């Protein structure tokens, strides 16, 4: 008797499971790799508990029909499907940021002449875009003590902030950070001098 009841319980739970799978099957989800604003196509690996798929070329799409089903085989997304499904999200995509790289005289907080002229262009970009954030980051090469480099990078970034503020940029838009040697433009081994890494990067969003 007890045995029979447990068979029924098992049957019912199996039936419920089947219905859940059917419901999950209705909830179709799609993941599509597309070119970025610069035309570059990256890569993405999509996993569920039951398997994974690699998206590697423009338009590659996999569909997900539940955590216990593997992602579907990769197909190519139709442009009409992309337009119909993602129109709202694509319409509010933030404009890609504008990036300015400023160089300094060696060991000093004095901008090179070319970079000094760039300040006006940065101010124009901030006004044209009605920017909501201006990120200023100081960077160094991999020579010298971290402490000294970080301090110099920060001082240079502060210098750029002061110049932008003098031109009327609101201080509350600006954030200043030092990346030290952790985010080089040109990767080098430790201890190698690289003038192109001694810079301040201004990113206008």
């Amino acid at each position: 008797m007890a045995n029979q009841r447990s068979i029924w319980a098992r049957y019912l739970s199996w039936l419920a499971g089947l219905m859940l799978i059917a419901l999950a099957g209705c909830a179709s989800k799609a993941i599509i790799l597309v070119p970025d604003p610069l035309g570059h196509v990256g890569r993405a690996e999509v996993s569920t508990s039951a398997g994974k798929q690699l998206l590697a070329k423009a338009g590659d799409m996999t569909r997900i029909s539940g955590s216990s089903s593997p992602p579907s085989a990769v197909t190519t997304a139709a442009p009409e499907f992309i337009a119909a499904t993602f129109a709202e999200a694509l319409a509010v995509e933030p404009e890609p940021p504008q990036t300015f790289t400023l160089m300094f005289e060696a060991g000093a907080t004095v901008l090179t002449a070319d970079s000094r002229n760039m300040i006006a262009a940065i101010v124009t970009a901030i006004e044209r875009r009605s920017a909501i954030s201006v990120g200023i980051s100081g960077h160094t090469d991999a020579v010298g003590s971290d402490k000294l480099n970080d301090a110099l990078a920060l001082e240079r970034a502060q210098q750029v902030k002061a110049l932008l503020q003098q031109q009327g940029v609101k201080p509350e838009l600006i954030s200043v950070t030092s990346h030290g040697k952790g985010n080089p433009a040109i990767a080098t081994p430790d201890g190698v001098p690289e003038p192109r890494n001694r810079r301040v990067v201004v990113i206008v969003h």
Partner: protein
Amino acid sequence: MKIAARAFLIAMLVAAPAFAQQGAEVIGHIQNAQGAVSIQRGGTTLPGAAGAALYRGDRVRTGKPGAAGIVLTDDTSISQGSSSELSLDDYAFDPQEGKFALVLRMIKGTFSYITGQIVKLAPESAHVHTPDATIAVRGTKLLIQVQE
């Protein structure tokens, strides 16, 4: 009196997560907002207007009609269509200390996601979760649909 004290206590409990954010670091901003957009921070719901600052743990919700475009401080860009919900589960961008983390949870809706400097510098620290799948993104732009 007792009721007033209790109401005050409840108000403090509800508001506490919002106060706790005061010293926390801004991780990004809402750049574009259309229609109904809100930010859930702890127990508080705030309007999600263009220019609003975002913190780790925030959830950005859109109504119908509604849409929002977000930029994080590492240049990650995420935009979402109507009836969408995004949770900024974890975030760290500190190249000087070599600390990176980016965990996004796309709970429902439609999303366009463009990777930023975290994926460039430390791709293994970036994860996107949907209710059923995990996406390891190695750049640079993905469209993600999550239906309820």
